[in-house]
């Protein structure tokens, strides 16, 4: 087994990997930027090295500095986490060149899956089901019109190198197609330096369901169940669960088998995720493969009882998978909330800053993977994911109940978080009925939040508490009068505006 692993990441995922390493008695090496000296991953690692200023391009994305730390510290392997360099095949190659094991797939598999059109070509050869459309970039507007005619409107234009909704256009009629194609191509060029755009039949109100796979370096590949990821805002996943409310064992087996076929076709090794679009008739279509550990991997861990990071490390170490497909036992239901530093009352503006109070849930059925602590200053330089709160239950209803209970216990002051958003989702009738698709969250947010059951005497209770705080904790009361000038009014005005905008 490796004696030392470098974790080329930060935040909750770095902490999660450090924990796995400690469990396996592997020493850990953290890297950190100027903004992260006091971050939890630095505190928890056995070693920690500074790699540059706050901007990721000058620190967490600097392959040379990270490989230099690996060399200095004697780390034998690098876990890239998610984001940053995790899907960068050049980094995987650079690790191999430096004789450091990259804990993930080979550069070859990463490259194949990195280009959507190339992936589509390879997967079509392997007989993987696709949304009808082209498997390569459009050479002309005429070709686009012809394909669109064949698959039927509405169609979706997508950038080959795309991600995050950039270079995407939904086209309803032939008349719109030409100008949409031009603008998608120029956006793709601007965003990715590559104007290649392809066309697909648009699936109306699809679900986004993905399948976890795991492959060792000896040719064994298994699937570990699906994750329902349809709840998204601005193409970012917000809440994930497993099993999906619509997937039965037969459909799960079929999706799993396709996912394994995808992985095999890419000579895939280590942990990966095959994403599918699912239409209203439960047809599923290959979307893309994520060649890394996903943010939402814990929901699969909870329903299978496996530890994916342990298994990633063992696979990278050359071990065989310790089980076969038939041994995988899916039991119960798991849901994950991504706790972001953002303000639900203010158009989801990011909310970095100092965490002044932090009360964290625990107890039956609750897992918390967190990168924050009370007193920590959440930097403004990175993505706003603070922690993941998960629940496990005998069934979906119990998982929802336990998660609601845990969210009730969760309290973060000093910065804003989206905890209230999850409370809203979990009490929503459509969510409880499992009626989900990728448009679900936009529809929910378009409605006015009734704020849940409102209790009349609460305002009086708050007033009494305010007085008692002032009497019993006068130090803080003094502090209160400190900066309170006219800005109060300004801020709250600005807030009300933000709030009413969010409700449009």
């Amino acid at each position: 087994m490796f004696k030392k692993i470098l974790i080329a990441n930060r935040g909750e995922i770095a902490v999660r990997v450090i924990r796995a390493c400690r469990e396996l008695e592997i020493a850990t090496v953290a890297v950190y930027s100027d903004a992260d000296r006091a971050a939890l991953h630095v505190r928890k690692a056995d070693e920690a090295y500074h790699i540059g200023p706050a901007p990721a391009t000058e620190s967490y994305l600097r392959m040379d500095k990270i490989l230099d730390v690996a060399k200095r510290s004697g780390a034998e392997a690098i876990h890239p986490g998610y984001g940053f360099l995790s899907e960068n095949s050049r980094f995987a190659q650079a690790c191999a060149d430096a004789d450091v094991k990259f804990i993930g797939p080979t550069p070859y598999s990463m490259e194949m899956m990195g280009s959507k059109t190339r992936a589509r070509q390879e997967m079509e050869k392997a007989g993987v089901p696709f949304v009808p459309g082209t498997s390569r970039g459009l050479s002309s507007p005429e070709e686009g019109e012809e394909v669109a005619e064949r698959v039927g409107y509405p169609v979706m234009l997508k950038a080959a190198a795309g991600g995050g909704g950039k270079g995407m256009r939904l086209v309803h009629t032939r008349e719109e197609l030409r100008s949409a194609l031009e603008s998608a191509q120029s956006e793709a060029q601007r965003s990715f330096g590559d104007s290649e755009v392809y066309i697909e039949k648009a699936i109306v109100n699809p679900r986004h369901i993905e399948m976890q796979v795991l492959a060792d370096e000896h040719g064994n590949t298994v699937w570990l169940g699906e994750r329902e990821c349809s709840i998204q805002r601005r193409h970012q996943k917000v809440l994930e669960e497993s099993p999906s409310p619509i997937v039965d064992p037969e459909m799960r087996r079929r999706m799993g088998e396709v996912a394994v076929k995808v992985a095999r076709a890419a000579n895939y090794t280590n942990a990966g995720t095959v994403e599918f679009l699912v239409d209203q008739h439960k047809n599923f279509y290959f979307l893309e493969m994520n060649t890394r550990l996903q943010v939402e991997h814990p929901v699969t861990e909870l329903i299978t009882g496996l530890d994916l990071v342990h298994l990633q490390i063992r696979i990278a170490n050359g071990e065989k998978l310790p089980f076969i497909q038939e041994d995988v036992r899916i039991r119960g239901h798991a849901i994950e909330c991504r706790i972001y530093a953002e303000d639900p009352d203010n158009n989801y503006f990011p909310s970095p800053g100092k965490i002044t109070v932090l009360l964290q849930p625990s107890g039956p059925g609750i897992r918390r993977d967190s990168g924050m602590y009370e007193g920590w200053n959440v930097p403004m330089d990175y993505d706003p994911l603070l922690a993941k709160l998960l629940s496990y239950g005998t069934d979906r209803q119990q998982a929802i109940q336990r998660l609601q209970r845990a969210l009730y216990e969760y309290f973060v002051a000093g910065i804003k978080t989206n905890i209230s958003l999850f409370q809203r989702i979990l009490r929503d009738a459509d969510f409880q009925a499992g009626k989900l698709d990728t448009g679900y969250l936009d529809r929910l947010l378009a409605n006015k939040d009734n704020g849940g059951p409102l209790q009349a005497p609460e305002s009086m209770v708050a007033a009494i508490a305010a007085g008692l705080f002032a009497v019993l904790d006068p130090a803080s009361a003094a502090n209160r009068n400190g900066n309170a000038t006219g800005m109060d009014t300004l801020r709250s005005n600005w807030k009300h505006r933000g709030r009413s905008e969010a409700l449009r």
Partner: protein
Amino acid sequence: MVYEIIVDGKPHRLELEKADGLWECRIDGREIKVDAVIPRRDVISMLVDGHSYEIKREQTPTDLHLWVGSTRHAVELRDPRSLQSRRAATGDEKGPKKLVAPMPGRIVRVLVEEKSEVEAGQGIVVVEAMKMQNEIKSPKKGTVQKILATPGAAVNAGDVLAIVE
């Protein structure tokens, strides 16, 4: 002790007196006995008529909020004897409004020029934080008196970005 306390815009008058280890509260004409302890900073546990309330305090340099359960209440506390807080309370509703940064970040772009006319809700400055670009919008219809934001500069929460008259 007497306080004037505004909760979500609604004023309450609160009198507090300690008796027999309990707090006798007179609020809006009602008399309520409260058993209160502070188990940790910014958390108060109150027992009122058998009901157990745990109220959490969120204190920023500019705002005070109290959370009762999962509900957040904006609170302003005024000691009627204090002139200073009374003055603050009368903050002018008209006149120039400051556009402040809602979070620390970096100025990406300024979308209007000084002296230009803007609508309420029109974007004025774009601030980047946590990999997201966020348009900070005008609080009112009017004229941009002054722009204090410079592209590339770092700002803190509460920093004034512009003034709209």
